[in-house]
């Protein structure tokens, strides 16, 4: 039964009907009526962030750790513009987010009113879709449609801009069931003919490889299960993008590690040398392909993607399959089984022998140091001491992010939150807050660099206020490490503005917020310090002072193909002696 209510009440009712249990937000003049409704109920929890960008990243963390859409509520003008970076981040990484923004009253729109901004105009290119609701009668239906658009097909952020007079006015509430969803119904089943061609290719390929991405995670847990079954049954090696880590377990027999600019040697050379590439929910990003005209030159390529604009965007695909990963993989698996579970055993055996040879390069080898902590060592210890726990990892952006992807093992989907497409420094800390809100008793670690972390450090207030025991594991090299690395390698060692001369004392900073700070600069103390961090029941800032000039390897120099990979100094010599593929 429908009933009349105010727009503000409608917002809360619509969120409840959508199964929302938490909203990340920040109040302001243009959303006061909605905040007043939030005050008068207990079904939806509101987490007060300290900056609207933090609200969106927290919602992203929540969405990635749960598979449910994250919800953000912010005010007009600066509230909305502050959210733009987070919204763009969610668009690039296909994260379902519903952002509700307040707006000045409809009769004042266009008058340069206080805290007025053209929010739908500003966010049009960085949302999957957005709406300005000018009539309370349309408000609830619009919010329901927004949830549908955010979650259906390729997920993404949506925004609903709600003028203040629309929040005050009353109209009849439209329940979820009546929402207009017919105009957006992306196809989920793949073309059977193309699926058959892919199965035939899997049966005969001599050097096949699965290249999987965030689309597997977004498709849901069933997609990861089906992927594991298909990979293990066929014995085909698998690599993944940064976004797709965890879909196939790092401990899995066929796992090659991450691919791409800082991917593993064996993963990138497999991509370069394969004769069949099966792209499952990835998008041939430039960090993956390197130089396009030399990208995997001898392979036939299949591409499973729910977004038609991803197919043939940068790399020509021989077998495009438009559909949802789980649906397509199920069909592929069933057909492959029905046709007798065939693979090219001899070819695969030779292929694996080649891969084992590449693995001997041991591309993640690093020279340990006794005097200072190597960042790789810090992460290897973090991995050893947290493995097997109910663990979620977030990262900021930079060297530490790549090292985390290389040295931490992900066994399950939805346990790895990192800003891939947009590369947003300042993402990880608020994201870790969103994850911890979703999983209060889990161990949530944000692997950070000190520079990234400072970009949203104000969220310490949020972590302390809501007693969220997020662990901020800061690899502090007092440098913008990745920028410094590029300047060393590509800009004649001219370190233009890539170090901080006035870093805070992170232990005192933690204490100033009422949290715990730990500092560690000696490899001998590292394990105890990490255990102290894990065991502390509350938020921790862990200031891990690491080697200042460590570079992140392996690295495909920008503009080069996969086989022109640069290995770390520790292993470069060996690899050249081994007479392997062309290096350096």
């Amino acid at each position, binding site marked *: 039964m429908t009933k009349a209510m105010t727009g503000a009440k409608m917002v809360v009712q619509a969120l409840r009907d959508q199964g929302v249990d938490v909203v990340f937000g920040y109040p302001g003049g243009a959303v006061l009526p909605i905040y007043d409704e939030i005050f008068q109920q207990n079904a939806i929890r509101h987490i007060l962030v300290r900056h609207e960008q933090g609200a969106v990243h927290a919602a992203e963390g929540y969405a990635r750790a749960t598979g449910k859409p994250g919800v953000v509520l912010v005010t007009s003008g600066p509230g909305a513009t502050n959210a733009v970076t987070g919204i763009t981040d969610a668009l690039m990484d296909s994260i379902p987010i519903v952002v509700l923004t307040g707006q000045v009253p409809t009769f004042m729109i266009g008058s340069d009113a206080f805290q007025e901004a053209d929010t*739908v*105009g500003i966010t*049009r*290119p960085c949302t*999957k*879709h957005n709406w*300005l609701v000018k009539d309370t009668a349309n408000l609830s239906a619009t919010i329901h449609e927004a949830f549908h*658009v955010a979650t259906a*097909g*390729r997920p993404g952020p949506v925004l609903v801009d709600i003028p203040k007079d629309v929040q005050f006015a009353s109209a009849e509430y439209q329940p979820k069931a009546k929402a207009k969803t017919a*105009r*957006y119904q*992306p196809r989920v089943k793949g073309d059977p003919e193309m699926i058959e061609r892919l199965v035939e290719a899997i049966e005969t390929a001599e050097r096949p490889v699965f290249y999987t991405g965030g689309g597997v995670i977004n498709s849901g847990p069933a997609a990861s299960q089906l992927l594991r079954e298909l990979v293990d049954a066929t014995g085909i090696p698998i690599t993944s993008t940064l976004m797709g880590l965890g879909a196939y377990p790092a401990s899995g027999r066929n796992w090659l590690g991450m691919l791409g*600019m800082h991917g593993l040697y064996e993963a990138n050379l497999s991509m370069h040398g394969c004769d069949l590439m099966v792209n499952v929910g990835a998008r041939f990003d*430039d*960090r993956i*392909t*390197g*130089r*396009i*005209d030399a990208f995997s030159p001898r392979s036939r390529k299949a591409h499973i993607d729910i*977004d*038609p*604009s991803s*197919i*043939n*965007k*940068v*790399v*020509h695909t021989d077998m495009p399959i438009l559909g949802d990963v789980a649906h397509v993989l199920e069909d592929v698996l069933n057909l492959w089984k029905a046709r007798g579970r065939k693979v090219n055993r001899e070819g695969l055996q030779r292929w694996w022998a080649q891969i084992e040879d590449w693995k001997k390069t041991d591309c993640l080898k690093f020279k340990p140091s006794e005097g200072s902590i190597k960042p790789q060592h810090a992460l290897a210890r973090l991995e050893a001491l947290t493995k097997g726990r109910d663990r979620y990892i977030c990262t900021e952006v930079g060297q530490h992010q790549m090292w985390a992807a290389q040295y931490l093992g992900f066994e399950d989907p939805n346990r790895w939150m990192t800003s891939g497409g947009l590369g947003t420094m300042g993402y990880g800390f608020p994201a870790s807050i969103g994850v911890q809100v979703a999983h209060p008793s889990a161990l949530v670690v944000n692997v950070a660099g000190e520079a990234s972390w400072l970009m949203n450090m104000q969220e310490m207030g949020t972590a302390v206020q809501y007693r969220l025991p997020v662990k901020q594991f800061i690899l502090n090299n007092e440098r913008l490490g990745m920028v410094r690395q590029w300047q*060393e*390698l*590509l*800009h*004649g*060692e001219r370190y233009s503005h890539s170090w901080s001369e006035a870093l805070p004392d992170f232990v005192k900073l933690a204490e100033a917020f009422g949290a715990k700070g730990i500092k560690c600069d000696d490899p001998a103390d590292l394990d105890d310090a990490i255990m102290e961090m894990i065991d502390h029941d509350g938020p921790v800032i862990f200031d891990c002072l690491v080697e200042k000039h460590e570079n992140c390897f392996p690295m495909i*120099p*920008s*503009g080069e193909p996969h086989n022109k990979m*640069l290995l770390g100094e520790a292993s*470069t010599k060996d690899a050249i002696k081994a007479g392997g593929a062309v290096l*350096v």
Partner: protein
Amino acid sequence: MNALNIKKGSTKHSAYNLRPSFSETIETHTLAVLVDNEAGVLARVIGLFSGRGYNIESLTVAEVDHAGHKSRITIVTTGTPQVIEQIKAQLGRMIPVHDVHDLTAEGRSVERELALLRVEGTGEKRVEALRLADIFRAQAVDSTLESFVFQITGTPEKVDAFAELMRPLGLVEIARTGVAALSRGL
């Protein structure tokens, strides 16, 4: 140590120098896009073109189904075959877009444009303008003793040709609607 053997200060190594190896032939296509006539829909379509660096040669839009709130946008665009495919895919995934038809790829179509031209002059030039208008089947929809406003309908090429002829005869202003297009009957 400069392990990459790159000359100091070289700017040639950028991750963004990544050219896809698709065909470089530039084609012109006419797209008909059926959209919900809602606030901001034209801005979305135009923003897609400007944001992703696509070309718009001509664009027309008007409501074609008043009851169903549907508008038809006709876009003439240029690009490599791969870019044209991207444009169609990008348009097709927008929420208010119902249909994207590539009239150029789907077979024969009719394309028409309407233009209004004001031509000022007296004496022989004025007579000559009227004579040419007759040949082009342009109508004089307004006239004074020293000027005409001609209305011409036809392909963009025909409008171009007429405007070119009017230029020495006193063309002072021109307004064009852009292309409207429909596929031909089977």
